[in-house]
């Protein structure tokens, strides 16, 4: 059932078993799961409507960035990195799906605050179900399984140091398109759009008694429920928790809400000239909907540090994406001085190896170390609904950048050791790209300007960690079932609960965790 909050009488009230706040990947997955698989009444409250572009609603996301900038090509604002309408950030999600590695869940020597209270294999049943929700292929991310199906060549590097796995990339997977109509038609689920949560009052036991919401048109509404789930993303979730309960906050007894904000650090600062032809590297080609598959997904390989490498060398996770690949002969990146890709490609052949045949831009997508000083807090100014605006102070640790550079160097070593190519680090400027065919010709690489302590970092729009999961209330906001430690009926869904970020894109795991929470609520809480 669809409810437009703007058309309600002021002060309207709803009752439900479960109230889910936020209609993004986590919220929609959870609300659908509860409404379809149990005789539970569910309210899903969404700030926006079915389409982007309502400026009053988008403006509610505005806030302050005081730490490291969120870089795209240019610094991004908090209204650009999130989408406040049904489907949330799935509306600009590229659809890349891959599970985290086992090591991502482990307590790792040298990585403070690492470790999840659940293990990799604990999530397997829900990752498998997530494949169905997102509508990708079977739970298999082994390049050997997929390469023959897409007529791709073999992995470039796949050994004990660096391995190759694949991403399954669904067709554009905006959840509003996939599930909006289904939710409208559901008898158990009320989808309330244009409703913005502004408070979560609690009783003395910490139990949330209701969700108070407002519309941008001035209406108030309330939802009474047995269980409340906040699924508002890694920035808005702490904002609501910190502002809740009349400004006293919920779940923040230990001062942890909003801390440990993490993003993925994306660094495109390497060229690789390889003895493999561009065609032989097509496993890593990126999204190509024209490739033959028996399932409606694109497959693309990435190379990443193995669990053994991460543990033995005390590194953060990192995966390498071949951004653009072309034949070396056809590629002419500009480089003012020194040895260029053609020089090195020839040298390899002259010293007994296979000469360079292709050229590619290598981008790393890397984990950042959990850092309590990287955080979301509330500002003194408020939005149009009276909610304090967000202050995002994103911070990296020096070891975050050192680990990225080390990952590139390890890749360089593996390429050389196997006679597969050479890697160049440099500051890369991407010029005007009239079409991607000319991209390698349009880039300028300056090895001398490469500063390993000042990398050109762009972001993945992945906001994680601000209500992290832990068995210990002094180290995490939610418990292993995603329940806020200090509240008997308040849960968090989404990447805010990630204790560490891994080096895989988060949405696949967000969906899996939402399905896991749904199972928990159905079988353990609301029975």
């Amino acid at each position, binding site marked *: 059932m669809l409810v437009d909050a703007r058309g309600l009488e002021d002060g309207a009230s709803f009752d439900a078993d479960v109230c889910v706040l936020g209609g993004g990947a986590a919220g929609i997955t959870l609300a659908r799961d509860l409404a379809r698989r149990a005789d539970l009444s569910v309210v899903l409250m969404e700030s926006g409507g079915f389409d982007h572009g309502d400026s009053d609603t988008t403006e509610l996301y505005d806030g302050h960035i005081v730490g490291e900038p969120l870089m795209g090509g240019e610094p991004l604002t908090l209204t650009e990195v999130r989408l406040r309408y049904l489907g949330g950030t799935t509306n600009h999600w590229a659809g890349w799906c891959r599970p985290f590695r086992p090591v991502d869940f482990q307590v790792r020597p040298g990585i403070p605050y690492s470790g999840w209270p659940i293990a990799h294999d604990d999530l397997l049943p829900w990752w498998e179900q997530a494949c169905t929700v997102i509508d990708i292929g079977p739970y298999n991310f082994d390049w050997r399984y997929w390469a023959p199906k897409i007529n791709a060549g073999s992995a470039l590097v796949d050994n004990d140091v660096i391995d190759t796995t694949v991403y399954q990339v669904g067709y554009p997977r905006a959840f509003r398109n996939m599930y909006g109509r289904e939710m409208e038609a559901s008898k158990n689920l009320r989808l309330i759009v244009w409703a913005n949560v502004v408070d979560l009052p609690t009783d003395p036991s910490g139990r949330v008694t209701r969700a108070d919401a407002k519309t941008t048109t001035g209406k108030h509404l309330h939802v009474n429920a047995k269980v409340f789930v906040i699924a508002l993303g890694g920035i808005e979730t702490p904002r609501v928790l910190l502002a809740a309960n009349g400004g006293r906050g919920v779940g923040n007894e230990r001062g942890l809400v909003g801390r440990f904000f993490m993003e993925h650090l994306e660094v495109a600062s390497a060229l690789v000239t390889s003895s493999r032809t561009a065609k032989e590297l097509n496993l890593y080609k990126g999204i190509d909907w024209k490739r033959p598959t028996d399932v409606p997904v694109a497959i693309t390989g990435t190379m990443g540090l193995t669990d053994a490498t991460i543990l033995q060398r005390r590194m953060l996770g990192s995966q390498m994406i071949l951004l653009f*690949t072309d034949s070396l002969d056809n590629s002419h990146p500009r480089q003012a001085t020194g040895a260029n890709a053609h020089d090195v490609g020839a040298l390899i052949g002259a010293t*007994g190896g296979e000469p360079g045949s292709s050229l590619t831009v290598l981008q790393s997508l890397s984990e950042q170390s959990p850092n309590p000083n990287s955080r979301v807090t509330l500002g003194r100014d408020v939005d149009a609904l009276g909610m304090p605006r967000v202050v995002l102070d994103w911070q990296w640790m020096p070891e975050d950048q050192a680990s990225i550079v080390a990952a590139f160097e390890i890749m360089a070593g593996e390429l050389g050791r196997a006679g597969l190519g050479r890697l160049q680090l440099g500051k890369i400027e991407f010029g005007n790209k009239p079409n991607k065919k000319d991209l390698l010709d349009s880039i300028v690489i300056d090895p001398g300007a490469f500063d390993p302590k000042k990398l050109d970092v762009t972001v993945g729009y992945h906001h994680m960690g601000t209500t992290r999961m832990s068995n210990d209330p002094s180290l995490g906001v939610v418990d292993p079932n995603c329940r806020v430690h200090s509240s008997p009926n308040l849960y968090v869904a989404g990447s805010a609960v990630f204790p560490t970020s891994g080096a895989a894109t988060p949405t696949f795991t967000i969906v899996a965790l939402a399905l896991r929470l749904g199972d928990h609520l159905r079988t353990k809480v609301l029975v």
Partner: protein
Amino acid sequence: MNERGDDVERPGMNRRTLLARMGSVPLVIAAGSLLDACGTGDSKAEVLQHVANVGHAYLKEYPTDGDVARLEQALALPAKNPTDHLDRLDRLVRADFANGRVVRVSGWSLSQTEARAAALVALTRK
């Protein structure tokens, strides 16, 4: 060809054909003083220029290696036939990477051996 290089097979640049294009360039690398004995094909000159470019870049960053005799001694490459040299060089280069004997030249991670070989060419090429 598309931007990701679908059909960018480059049949002329495998090892065998490169060798044919280079003539005895590998021997030159092994003993720079024999450079003049190698003939003067355009392809070979082109390859030598590329290699010399790496060598000059290396010497700029590692000027203490700018001595032919010292490089020849460091490379320790006996004058045998070019194919033998190639195989040996290839093994040495891979071993360098396996054992961390890597130098940074214009941002490139190169093996110590190949960088010195390039420097030898740069110093002896006329």
